[in-house]
């Protein structure tokens, strides 16, 4: 438990937060990486997945992207990117290997957003959608007023999973000489100073829990179905073989 006390001393000591390799720099890098990657993931992934879900197309892609994302180690992708043409050049405030890290983050943030958003829209009861069309709603209105509200919980869960994944991935970047709080941990391990290992782990785990908590609060605020109880499917039960029902049959009839 000496290490724990040492780690707390380290975290409370203002000196350890200062400097170009101080805790503050690493924390800012990690937060910047996570936020930037989340924005990119949302800008790229959300419209694509929601559109695919609305059209009922690309289900195989939307489902399997998560299976692939799980099977490929983050560490391997970071290594391949860092040794490849992108390299470990410093990218502005994102630090060393900033671009490689950012690309890896986006690649691992996209799958949960794409799969959950797609499945969320697809699982909206087809009869409700038909009824909405029957009342004369345009495709955009069907999407905006019916599908999106009903899918919002699944979408929000996907975004929350992505956020946690991004934070974890940003931590691993330190293993390939990248930026972020992982450096505090790797520094501690390679110098046998376990104060640093614990201090880093506290910051990383604490940051993840704060993000998870923030996401949960935002999720509750934006969820239009929050007063509806009994919704069993929260998008967190993992089903790799979830098959996408096709809307082709109904499309052919109409």
């Amino acid at each position, binding site marked *: 438990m000496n*290490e*724990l006390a040492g780690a707390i001393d380290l975290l409370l000591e203002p000196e350890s937060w200062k400097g170009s390799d101080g805790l503050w720099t690493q924390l800012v890098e990690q937060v910047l990486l996570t936020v930037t990657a989340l924005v990119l993931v949302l800008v790229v992934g959300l419209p694509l997945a929601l559109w695919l879900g609305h059209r009922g197309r690309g289900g195989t892609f939307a489902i399997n992207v998560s*299976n692939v994302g*799980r*099977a*490929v*180690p*983050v*560490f*391997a*992708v970071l*290594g*391949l990117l*860092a*040794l490849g043409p992108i390299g470990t050049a410093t990218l502005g405030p994102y630090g060393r290997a900033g671009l490689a890290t950012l690309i890896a983050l986006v690649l691992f943030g996209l799958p949960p957003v794409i799969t959950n958003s797609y499945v969320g829209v697809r699982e909206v009861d087809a009869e409700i959608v038909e009824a909405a069309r029957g009342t004369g709603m345009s495709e955009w209105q069907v999407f905006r007023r019916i599908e999106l509200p009903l899918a919002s919980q699944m979408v929000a869960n996907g975004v929350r999973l992505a956020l*946690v994944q991004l*934070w*974890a991935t940003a*931590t*691993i970047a*330190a*293993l*390939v000489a990248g930026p972020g709080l*992982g450096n505090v*941990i*790797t520094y*501690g*391990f390679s110098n046998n100073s*376990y104060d640093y*290992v*614990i201090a*880093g*782990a*506290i910051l*990383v*785990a604490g940051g*993840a*829990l704060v993000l*998870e908590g923030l996401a949960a609060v935002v999720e509750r605020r934006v969820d239009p179905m929050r007063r509806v109880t009994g919704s*069993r499917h929260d998008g*967190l*039960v*993992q*089903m*790799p*073989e979830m098959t996408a029902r096709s809307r082709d049959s109904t499309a052919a009839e109409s």
Partner: protein
Amino acid sequence: MSLVADASNVAVLAADPPCYARTVNSWVCPEYVTRYAPELWEATVQHVLLTVTSVVLGLVLAVALSLAARHRPKARSLLLGSTTLVYTIPSLAMFSILAQATGLTPTTVVIGLALYSLSILVRNVLAGLDSVPDEVVEAATGLGYGRLRLLTRIEAPLALPIVMAGLRVATVSTVALVTLGTIVAYGGLGNMLANGIDDSFKAQVLTTSVLCVVLAVLLDLVIVAFARLVTPWTRGAAA
């Protein structure tokens, strides 16, 4: 004569260094795989052992905890809440914290990864048990099934497909996460991956990365085959 022979040897070396040589450093290098086959094999075996031990431990704990908590709403939400928290903690931080108790040992990796597997599996075990229709349970109870026989003969088989789906996800994720065990020196293929990255050894990085993915796919296929074997009645529905 010897001079000539040496010269020709040098010529051969200069003209044709292996693709894993520092001067060549190719990404794709079949000679690397044959030259380093024993090391790759050893790392793969460690990788599989770490994965299987972690997932089996996670499964046993998930089943035990789910069975204990399923009819108790408070215990149930506590279980789901705490496993969500565990799943939120990044693996690097998890291994670092556990290493203070269990040191730089395989135990550190196994406990960490078992906790992640547990977090995934608890949801699927509970969802699987919930998926058993009430009528079926009532009918079985009416036929005189006791609680144990109800669980083993009725509920367990009906819950199996959803549990197996969770087992696939847990196994595939664990194969990828084992690589990070390298922080405590037990990462299976992750150890070779880390060395490869440190030495800018491209053939090693690519080969071990590909092996990790191949391993995940193979273990996934094994579970799919096993699931079909133990739930023959789902075969028609899946097609």
